[in-house]
C-alpha cells in the first residue's frame, strides 16, 4: 500500500535541495502581468489554455481506447451493410453505389461523433471539473474551445480511418487530391459546427446519459432522412422537401461533388453557408449557457 508511508508530517525531506521553496507556502502567484496587459497577452493565454484543455481531452480519449474502437466499429458496419447487403438494390444516377455511399457515411460518422462533445462537457460538469476550472485564473473560453478542438482532432482521425475503409471496399475519388481535401475540409468544418450544437445540449443536460438521450432523436432523423444512403428522388414528395433542404443533405451533396463527381460551386457555397450559420447560432448560445451555469 502506498498510503502507509507518512505524508502527514508534511514537508519533504531536506535532501540538500535548499533552493526549493517550501511547498504550499503563500508566494505571490506567478503570472503578474497578464491581467492588465494587452489583448496580445490575453490572446496568448486564451490559446495556451485552450490547447492545455485540448491536450487533456485528447489524453483522456487515449485512456479509453475501447470507446474509440467501438465508436469506429459502428460506421464500419454501416459501410459493410450498405455496400454489400442493401446497396445492390439502390441505383443512384451518375454514381457507383460505393461512390454515392462514402460521402454519406463520412457525414453520418461525424454527426454521431459530435455527440461526444456534449457528453464530455456534461461529464465535466457532473464531476465538478468545470467548477475547478472556473476557480482557476484561466481563460473563460478554454473549456469550450478545448473540448471542441479535441473533438475536431478526433474527427480528423475518424475521417482518415473511414477513408481507408472506403478505399478498402472500392471507393475512389474521381476529382483529384485537392478537390477531395476541399471535401474533407467541408466535412470537418461541419463537424466542428455540430460540436457547438452538441456543446449546447451537453451543458443543458448536465449528465452524460441525458446528453446522449437528448442528442440521439435529433441526429437520427437528420442523418437517415437525408441523401446519405438513397437518392432523394426515391422518397415520397412530402419527405423530399425536408430532406433536400436540411443541412446533412446539403453537406453530403457538397462532399459528393467535391470528392466524387466534380465540384459544383452552388453546393459548396450552400454547405458553407449552413456551417457558418450553425456556428453563428450555436457558438454564442453555448458560450452564454456556459457562463450562466450556476
Amino acid at each position, binding site marked *: 500500500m*502506498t*498510503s502507509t*508511508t*507518512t*505524508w*502527514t*508530517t*508534511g*514537508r*519533504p525531506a531536506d535532501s540538500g535541495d535548499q533552493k*526549493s*521553496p*517550501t*511547498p*504550499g*507556502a*503563500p*508566494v*505571490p*502567484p*506567478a*503570472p503578474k502581468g*497578464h*491581467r492588465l496587459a494587452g489583448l496580445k497577452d490575453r490572446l496568448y*493565454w486564451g490559446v*495556451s*489554455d485552450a490547447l*492545455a*484543455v485540448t491536450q*487533456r481531452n485528447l*489524453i*483522456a480519449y487515449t*485512456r*479509453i481506447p475501447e470507446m474509440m474502437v467501438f465508436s469506429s466499429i459502428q460506421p464500419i458496419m454501416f459501410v459493410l451493410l450498405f455496400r454489400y447487403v442493401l446497396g445492390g438494390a439502390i441505383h443512384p444516377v451518375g454514381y457507383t453505389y460505393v461512390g454515392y455511399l462514402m460521402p454519406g457515411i463520412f457525414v453520418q460518422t461525424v454527426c454521431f461523433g459530435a455527440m461526444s462533445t456534449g457528453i464530455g462537457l456534461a461529464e465535466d460538469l457532473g*464531476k*465538478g*471539473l468545470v*467548477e*475547478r*476550472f*472556473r*476557480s*482557476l*485564473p*484561466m481563460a473563460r473560453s*478554454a473549456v469550450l474551445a478545448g473540448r471542441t478542438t479535441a473533438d475536431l482532432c478526433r474527427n480528423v482521425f475518424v475521417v482518415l480511418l473511414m477513408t481507408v475503409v472506403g478505399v478498402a471496399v472500392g471507393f475512389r475519388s474521381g476529382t483529384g487530391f485537392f478537390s477531395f481535401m476541399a471535401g474533407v475540409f467541408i466535412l470537418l468544418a461541419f463537424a466542428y459546427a455540430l460540436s457547438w450544437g452538441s456543446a449546447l445540449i451537453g451543458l443543458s443536460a448536465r449528465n452524460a446519459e441525458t446528453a446522449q438521450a437528448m442528442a440521439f432523436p435529433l441526429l437520427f432523423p437528420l442523418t437517415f432522412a437525408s441523401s446519405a444512403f438513397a437518392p432523394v428522388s426515391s422518397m415520397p414528395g412530402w419527405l423530399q422537401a425536408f430532406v433536400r433542404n436540411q443541412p446533412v443533405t446539403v453537406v453530403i451533396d457538397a462532399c459528393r461533388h467535391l470528392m466524387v463527381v466534380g465540384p459544383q460551386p452552388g453546393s459548396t457555397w450552400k454547405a458553407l453557408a449552413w456551417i457558418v450559420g450553425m456556428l453563428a447560432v450555436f457558438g454564442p448560445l453555448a458560450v452564454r449557457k456556459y457562463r450562466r451555469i*450556476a
Partner: protein
Amino acid sequence: MENAAIVASGLVKRFGDVPALDGIDLAVPPGTVFGLLGPNGAGKTTTVRILTTILRPDAGEARVLGHDVVADPEAVRNSIGLAGQYAAVDENLTGAENLRLVGKLTHLPRPLIRERAAELLERFDLSAAANRPVKTYSGGMRRRLDLAASLVHRPPVLFLDEPTTGLDPRSRSDLWAVIEDLVAEGTTVLLTTQYLEEADRLADQLAVVDHGRIIAQGTPGELKAGLGSTVIEIGMPGEGSALMALQALVPLGVMPPTLDGTTVKLTVADGPSVLLDALRALDTEGIAPTGVTLREPSLDDVFLSLTGHAAVEESAA
C-alpha cells in the same frame, strides 16, 4: 476588518424563489482558519462558490486579499485554491497529468510546472501512483490529489469545501495534518464542514450557518463554552423517574436538561466532575439510572441548542 484576507458582507443569493444565502457577513484574518459549520443545504457551499468567483451574489460584496470577487474575479482567482467535496480531478488522467494541467492553466512558468507537480505528489504521498490514471485511486488518494491540485500555484488563500466528507477516519486525520501544515506555513483557509470535531480541531474562528444565515460565531472554545463541551446522557427506568431526574439535574447544566423518552440529556462544561455531582444528586433523590453516557457534543446538539431544530432536516419543507 481592514486587513482581513477574506471579507464578506451582506451576501445574498437566491436560486429561483429559494433563498440560499440570506445575508452572510464574515471576516477571516490572514494566516488563520475560518470554519463554516452547518448541515447540508445551510448555504456553506454557496458561500464558497461566491467567494471563489464561481457564482455571483445577488446582493452584498466580498473581497479576497482586497480584490472584489465580482469586479475583479481574475485577481481573486490568481490568489485562491479550491478543493471540494467532489474531488474534481480528471479520472482519465494520471495524478501527475492532473497537476501539470492545473499548472498550465494557472500560468506557471513551463519549467516550474513539472517540478511543482513532482514536489506535490511527493508531499501527498502519491509519487508511487503518479503515473496511474486517477480512476485507479482510492477515495483518500483522490482527495489528496484534489487538495494538491488546489495548491499548484501556491495560493495564499485556500477554500476547502467539506474536505473530508465521506473519508474514513484515518484518511481524515491524515488530511487534517496536511491542512495544519499549510496553515503553519501562512496559508489562510476557509473551510466548510458538517463535523464539529473537524471544526474544533482546525478552525481558529467558527461560524455556524443555518438557512443561509450565520446564527453563531466565535472561537471553538467560546462556542463550546456557550454550548457546553460535554453531553451527559442518563437513562432512567421509567418516565416518572426520568421527570424526577430532570428536576434534580436542573442546577447542574449550562442550559436546562432535556428529556428524550426516558433519557435525560445534560450539556455541561466539565463532564467528569459534573457527572459525579449528577449521580450524587440522583442518589439523594433515591433514583437509580439504567445507563450513563458521557460524550462530545455533536453537530446535532449544537443545532438543537442554537436553533431548536435538528441539523438533519425533518421532512417538512
